[in-house]
């Protein structure tokens, strides 16, 4: 079996597509997360393949589905946080030999194929449909929702995992060398860190609207607080530390105005869900959460970094696509879980959605009001990557758990959880899902 990459036609990129044809007919039921770690410790049982199997098995058990009922698997094949297996470094044969292998010895260690997973999960005897949704869980969710809706699979697992190795983030490879090839040199010679482009967009935003980086502090505090109530997350599991304004504002700059905490922490993690048709979901162990729409943006900036104008045009367009396909308006959102890793662009997503009626330039003021899970305007109840480490998965898990009423200490209390939205990553480009407690 060769696993294809999802065709572009599976994503809903355009405005004017109308209500999603499978609105309310696809449901998420099971959730599974493997324990997180800061870095891989080199053991077979903690490699990215092993934690993926763990997350998948938990999602299956959570849904209460027999493994032989599962007929689909959607995988994000790229697992790197920016850490790569260095060329010439000897292969960890003990780890490789602990699993059934594919033709790439680093499969399950520094990448993930559907074939590797199926070879190491013998209980999945009836998987007929496999597909890659490259990039993030957000992509893979769009693909899974569309695949189930289109009838390509009726009970489908979807998984995203991350590996993180020893060594400093992005400091190896070309960045350590004395020369660069001509094409990457045009963008990389100047040495901007990963958060640089977002920092620039934020700087332009602050100049245009008269805002300041200090105004991020309540958002950061709220996100970490929510993250500490996310038992599946990195900070809750390993470093249960609040992030008050003093700690946040005193932290060192990475690319000013982005500081250390504005950059999410790379971790080992795996998160998985079990999707099915709304009909089949009725007989499963958890309350179904219905997909009202999925929407995407493939917009690219004109040149090196997106301008604020480009960002605002695209987030507004994304908001319209999200609402149009779901047949809802901003007023229908109980909460939002848009992406936050980097924290300095969460406000772009909020403003594009018009969440609680906020307009361009107003989100940082909104952060100064009650944005907690107990108030009427919850912002990022998942806590996102700020609250639980880099995964781009927490926001989706939280939407499902909130709408199932099993978000535990994170459960929103100031609003009735009926409809949520999640997705990202960057304001320009991204993939989004609208979730609902009811199919209509």
């Amino acid at each position, binding site marked *: 079996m060769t696993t294809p990459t999802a065709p572009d036609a599976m994503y809903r990129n355009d405005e004017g597509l109308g209500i999603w044809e499978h609105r309310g007919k696809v449901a998420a039921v099971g959730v599974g997360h493997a324990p997180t770690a800061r870095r891989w410790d080199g053991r077979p049982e903690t490699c990215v393949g092993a934690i993926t199997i763990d997350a998948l098995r938990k999602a299956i058990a959570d849904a209460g589905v027999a493994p032989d009922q599962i007929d689909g698997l959607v995988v994000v094949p790229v697992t790197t946080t920016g850490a790569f297996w260095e060329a010439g470094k000897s292969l960890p044969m003990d780890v490789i030999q602990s699993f059934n292998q594919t033709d790439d010895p680093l499969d399950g260690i520094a990448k993930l194929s559907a074939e590797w997973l199926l070879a190491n999960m013998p209980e999945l005897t009836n998987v007929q449909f496999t597909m890659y949704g490259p990039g993030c869980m957000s992509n893979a969710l769009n693909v899974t929702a569309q695949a189930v809706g289109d009838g390509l699979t009726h009970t489908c697992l979807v998984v995203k995992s991350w590996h993180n190795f020893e060594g400093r983030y992005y400091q190896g490879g070309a960045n350590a060398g004395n020369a660069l090839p001509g094409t990457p040199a*045009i963008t990389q010679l100047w040495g901007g860190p990963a958060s640089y482009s977002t920092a620039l967009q934020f700087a332009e935003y602050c100049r245009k609207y008269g805002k300041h980086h200090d105004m991020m502090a309540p958002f950061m505090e709220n996100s970490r607080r929510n993250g500490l109530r996310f038992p599946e997350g990195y900070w809750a599991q390993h470093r249960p530390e609040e992030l008050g304004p003093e700690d946040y504002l005193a932290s060192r700059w990475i690319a000013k105005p982005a500081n250390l905490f504005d950059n999410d922490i790379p971790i080992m993690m795996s998160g998985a869900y079990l999707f099915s048709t709304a009909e089949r979901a009725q007989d499963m162990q958890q309350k179904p959460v219905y997909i009202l729409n999925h929407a995407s943006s493939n917009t690219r900036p004109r040149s090196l970094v997106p301008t604020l104008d480009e960002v605002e045009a695209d987030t507004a367009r994304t908001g319209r696509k999200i609402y149009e396909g779901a047949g809802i308006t901003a007023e229908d959102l109980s909460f939002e879980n848009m992406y936050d890793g980097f924290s300095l662009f969460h406000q772009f997503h909020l403003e594009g959605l018009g969440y609680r009626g906020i307009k361009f330039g107003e989100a940082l003021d909104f952060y100064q009001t009650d944005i907690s899970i107990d108030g009427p305007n919850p912002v990022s109840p998942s806590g996102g990557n700020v609250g639980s480490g880099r995964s781009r998965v927490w926001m989706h898990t939280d939407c499902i758990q909130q709408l199932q009423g099993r978000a535990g200490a994170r459960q929103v209390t100031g609003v009735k959880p009926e409809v949520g939205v999640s997705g990202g990553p960057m304001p320009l480009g991204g993939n989004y899902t609208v979730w609902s407690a009811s199919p209509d």
Partner: protein
Amino acid sequence: MAKQGVEPDELTQPFWDAANEQRLVIQNCVDCDRLQHPPSATCRDCDDGGNLEWKQVSGRGRIYNYGVVHDCPVRLLQEDQPFNLAVIMLDDDPGVQMYSHLPGVPVDDVPVGAAVEVMFEPSANGQLVPEWRVIDG
């Protein structure tokens, strides 16, 4: 600041050759009359890939925006931390951007909107690299 050297590849050879002659050239699509940077094998706006050439530009621009890099992933630049990293918009087409360390401008004291002109600095292997300096007016 000592930038990494450059080993021009097929796509970018004309850009780097021109830089060594202290000229700034930018990819231009003849069919849709539009500059594009970073360069690419095809025009991003023409469905049929367009018709790309390298066009010499004025070498004038404005500082559009900047950040201050305190934690740089590139080893050679780390000794110069913190440093300015600005984005220049070209006067020839203000949608087209180039990076600059703004040599001579104090860290985090960047005159956003100021006029700049291109200059060329040697990188680690001698390849000249376009940089930008603030000019009056």
